[in-house]
C-alpha cells in the first residue's frame, strides 16, 4: 500500500472532451451550492483561424479547473485563522469551523480554485475527496471520467504515464505538449498534462508566491485582522440570512423542492424581483 501523501491525480487534457461528467458528479454528490463549482471545465481558444481546407493552428482547448493542491499553498499562507490548511495527507482543505469568510484564500489562489459560497457564508473548494482517499478509494472525478482523462495513482505511476503520453503527443505534432504541476509551487498533487503550452491553457508559467503574501503569513498582527474578520462574519451572517429568505421565496415561486437550489439565470447578486419581471416580460413577447 502506497503512502497516501504520495497519491497524485493527473488530468490528461488531450483526452478531455469537456463533457462535464466530473462536474455533474461532484455537484450532485456533494450538493454544491448553485453557481459554485469545486471542479469545472473551462474552454480556451487559441491559435489563428483561417477559412479554407485545414483550420490553421486554431484550437479550442478544455481545461479542468479545480484545486491543484500545491505543496507551497498560497491559500494556506493567506488564511489568518488556520481554516485553510493541509490535512494529514498533505491535501489543502478548508475547516469551516475556523473559516471567517474573509475570502483571502480565494483572492490569493493563482488558479481561482476557491469559490466564496455566499449563501452558506463559507468558502468552497475541491478537497480531492479527502475522505475517499482516507478509505483507500479514488476521488470521484477519476472514477467517473468516461474518457479516463482524469487519472489517479502513485506519483511514480502518474509521472511515468505523463512521460509516455507527452512523447506520443509530440510525435503526433503537438510539439508544445508538457506536464504542469511537477515543480510549480513546490509540486502539485494534481498534475496537468497539456497538449499546448500552459499559457494557452490560461495557466501562469513559473508562478511564485508574492513577497507581500510571504510577509503577511509571517506577520505578528494577524489577530487584529482576525477581529476585522469577525466583524465581516457578523455582516455576512445577516446578509446571508436575507439571501436565504429571498432564495426560499424564489423556490416557492418556481415550485422547487427544497433540495433544488438552482433557478435559471439567478445568481446571488441578482435582484429577484427584477428577474421575475424579466421573466414575465419574456412571457409577454
Amino acid at each position, binding site marked *: 500500500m502506497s503512502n497516501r501523501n504520495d497519491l497524485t491525480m493527473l488530468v490528461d487534457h*488531450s*483526452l478531455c*472532451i*469537456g*463533457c*462535464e*461528467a466530473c462536474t*455533474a*458528479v461532484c455537484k*450532485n*454528490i*456533494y*450538493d454544491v451550492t*448553485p*453557481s459554485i463549482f469545486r471542479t469545472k471545465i473551462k474552454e480556451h*481558444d487559441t491559435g489563428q483561424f483561417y*477559412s*479554407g*481546407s*485545414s*483550420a490553421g493552428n*486554431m*484550437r*479550442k482547448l*478544455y481545461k479542468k479547473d479545480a484545486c491543484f493542491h500545491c505543496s507551497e499553498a498560497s491559500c494556506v499562507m493567506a488564511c489568518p*485563522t488556520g481554516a485553510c490548511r493541509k490535512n494529514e495527507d498533505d491535501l489543502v482543505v478548508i*475547516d*469551516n*469551523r*475556523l473559516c471567517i469568510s474573509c475570502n483571502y484564500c480565494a483572492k490569493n489562489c493563482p488558479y481561482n480554485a476557491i469559490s466564496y459560497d455566499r449563501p*452558506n457564508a*463559507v468558502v468552497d473548494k475541491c478537497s480531492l*475527496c*479527502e*475522505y*475517499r482517499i482516507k*478509505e483507500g*478509494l479514488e476521488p*470521484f472525478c477519476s*472514477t*467517473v471520467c*468516461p*474518457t*479516463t*482523462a482524469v487519472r489517479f495513482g502513485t506519483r511514480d505511476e502518474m509521472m511515468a504515464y505523463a512521460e509516455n503520453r507527452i512523447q506520443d503527443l509530440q*510525435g*503526433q*505534432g503537438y510539439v508544445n505538449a508538457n506536464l504542469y504541476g511537477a515543480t510549480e509551487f513546490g509540486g502539485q498533487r494534481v498534475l496537468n498534462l497539456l497538449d499546448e503550452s500552459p499559457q494557452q491553457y490560461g495557466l501562469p508559467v513559473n508562478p511564485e508566491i508574492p513577497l507581500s503574501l510571504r510577509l503577511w503569513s509571517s506577520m505578528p498582527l494577524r489577530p487584529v485582522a*482576525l477581529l476585522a474578520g*469577525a466583524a465581516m462574519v457578523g455582516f455576512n*451572517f445577516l446578509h*446571508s*440570512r436575507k439571501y*436565504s429568505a429571498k432564495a426560499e421565496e424564489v423556490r416557492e415561486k*418556481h415550485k422547487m*423542492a427544497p433540495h*433544488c437550489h*438552482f433557478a*435559471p439565470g439567478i445568481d446571488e447578486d441578482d435582484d429577484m424581483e427584477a428577474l421575475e419581471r424579466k421573466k414575465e416580460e*419574456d412571457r409577454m413577447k
Partner: protein
Amino acid sequence: MNEIKQKEMNVNRRNFLKLTLGGGAAAAVGLGIPKFAHAEAEQSLVEPRSKVVNTFCSVCGGGCAIKAHVVNDRIVHLEGNPDDQAAQGRLCVKAYAAPKTLYDPDRLKYPMKRTNPEKGEGVDPGFVQISWDEALELIAENFNKAIDEHGPESIIFFMRGQDFANRLRNAIGTPNHVAHQSTCFTSQVASWYAQVTGGGRPYIYDLENCKYIMGFGFDGLGKSKNMHIRNITRALSNNAKMVILDPYMSVTARKAHEWIQIKPGTDLAFALAMIHVIVSEGLHDEEYVENYTSGFEYLEDFSREYTPEWAEGITEVPAEDIRRIAREFATTKPAHIFTHKRDAAGPNYANSTKLAQAIVILNALVGTIEREGGLLLGRSFPSANFDETFPRPDFPERRSDRIDAWEQREIMSRFTNGDFATVADGILNEKPYPTKAALVRKYNVLAFPEAKRMVEAFKKLDFMAVCEIYPSEMAMMADVVLPEPHWLETSGVSTRSFFSRWPQLAVRTPVVDMGYDTKGFSGIIVEIAKAMGLGHYFEGASGGAWNNAVLEAAGTSWDEMKDDPTGLWGEEKPFEPREEFNTPSSKIELYSTVMEENGFDPLPTWRPRREGPNDEYPFNYLINRPPMHKMTESQNNTLVMELYGENNAILNRETAENMGIKDGDLVNIESRVGKIQLKAKLTDGIRHDCVCVFHGFGHWSRKLNVAYGIGANDGDLIPSMTHEEMKELHDPGAGACMTDFPVKVTKA
C-alpha cells in the same frame, strides 16, 4: 464523529449549517464552540456505506448497466457497472445527472384531463386530476368514437416501436404509426439494408484498435455516448490519427488532428473523390474486397470523373488535401469512417443516403466492416417472439395508405415506421383521409420539423392522449395525460444496442419509488385495450411476463436474474468476424442490386443538396447539441441546465463583426418557414457562411419551471414536407433533409 450525528448532517446539511452559523462566528473569534464542518457530512457519501441496486440507463438506447447507490432511500450516485461491456465502470454526464430528473418536482404525478377546450402554444390546458379508470374510459370512448365514425385509420400512434403498442395498433387496425426515424437515421439504415445487412444499421465500433479515424460531420465526442467517447479517446490514447470534416468546430473536430471545414452538404463529393483516388491508385485491401464484397468492377468507371480537382470545386477543400487524406486512409491500417445518426450521412441533406452508401464503400475498400478496428454487427441472444409468448386472435384487415405516406418509401417502409416531416401535411390536408385521435408516448412536438405547424396539426385532432413523465409541450396539447414512472423506478431488461461485442443482457429492478400514481407503458397499453373492448388481444400479457420471456430465450429467467449481484447475463466471447452478409450475393454490395431492384441508383452518383444559400437566405444552417443534454428531454434538469443553460446563434466572429453583431447581441434567424431569436455567440470555430444552433431549447410549457422560456427551438426553422415533395425527393433513405435549407441572420 459517531454515525448518528453523521446521518443527521447528511440529511439536512444546509439547515444545520444555518443553525450553526452563529456558533461558527463565535468559534472564529476563538471561543472554541464547535461549529458545523461540512466535510464530515461527506464521509457518508463514500460507496461502501450505501445500498447498491442494479439498473441500466434509459437516457439513450445504449443501455449502460448501472450500480445505483442509495443512502437513506435517496439516490446519491449512479456508477457504471464494471462488469458491463457497454458501461465498463463509467457512465456519461447525462446518466450521472439523471437523478435530478427523477427528483424533479415538475414531474407528472397522476393522470389528468384537459378542461380548456382551446389548444395551442402557450395555452393553459387547465388540467385537473382524474383517476386511472376515468382516464382509460375517456381514451376508450374517444378512440372508439373515432373508429365508428371515421374508421380505425383515423387513429395515429406517435411513439418508438414497442411490442405492446404495436399489437394494440394492429388490433385497432390502423396503419398509422409515426416515429422519428426520418429525422434521425433512415439514410444510414437504407444504405446498410441494401449493401450489408438486409436489415438495420449497427452502431458498434471497435475504434480503440483503429489507427485512422475519419468522420463526415459525426460529433461522436460531442454526443457523449459512453461507449463512443471511450472508444474514440482510447484510439487517441493509442496514437490513432483523427480527421474530421465539419463546417463547425464540434467537440470531435476539436480533438481531431485535422479539422476540414467542408462546405455544408458537399461531403458526398469528398467521399467520391476518395473512392476515385483509392480505386485509380489500387490502394484498396485486395483480399477483403475479393472475398467479402461484390461490384468492385463497377467502381473504376463510376469514379473516373470524380477527381479530387472536381471535388475541390464543390467542397472548397484543396484537391491535394483530398488526395493526401484518401491515401492516408487507405494505407494506415486499420482505418474507418465512423458515422452515427444526425450527421452529414444522417438525413441532413438530400444527398445523405448517397453519402452513407459511399461511406459503406470506402469502409469496405479498406476492409473494416466486421473487422477489428472498424464497425461490428451486434452479437445478441436469440430473441423471444411476442406472438408465441402471448398468442392472439387474428388482426382485422386494414388499409395500407398512411397519413405520412410512409408506405410509398420503397425500402424504408419495410422495417421502420413513419415520418415526422410529412405527417403535418397529412393531418392538416386530410391526405389521404381525415384523422381524429392520437396516442403519443414521449415525443415532444418541439422535435418535429416546423414544430409550429405540427402544433396546428395536433390542434386539428379531436382527441390526444399523451404518456409522459414530464409536462412537456406535447403533454400541454393533450386531452388526457398518463404519467409514467421514471426509469429509475422501473423493472426491465436491456440489450446493448450501441455496444454488444458478445450477447449480454442487463436487468433492472426499481431503485426508488417516488410514490406517484404512475403506470408502466406496457400496463397502460393493456388497460387501454381492455377499456376499448380489445382485451382478448392481451390474454396473459404483462410487462413482467415479457421481460421473463426475453430472459428465458437467452437461457435464464427473471427469478434467477432479479437478485443477481452483477445484474448481467452473458459470458464474454472472443470476436469472430462474420464471413457472410445478408444481401443477395452474401457479400457487401459496393454496387447495390437491392437499390437497383427498388428503382434507385445502385451507386452513389453525385447529387447536390436540395436547397443551398441564395441572395435572400445567404447562410447555411447547422444543428448540434451540447454533450450534457438529451434532445428536448433534459432542459428541466437543474444540474444539466447549470452546466449548459441556453442555446445561442453560433456565428463566425469575422462575419458577425462585419454585420455589426457583438457577442451576446440578439439576432434573428429566419428560414422560409419560420423565425427564431437568439443571443449571438461568436467563435472562430465555424465557417464564415454558417450559423449553428443547438437543439433542445425553446420550451413553451409553463409547467416546466426550469426549461420554460429559455433559448429557442431550432426546429421552428426546419421546413416540413408535403407527401408530394417527399416522393419527388426520391431518396431511398427517405430523409427529412433536416439542415438542407438556407437561412438569413439579422441583428434584432
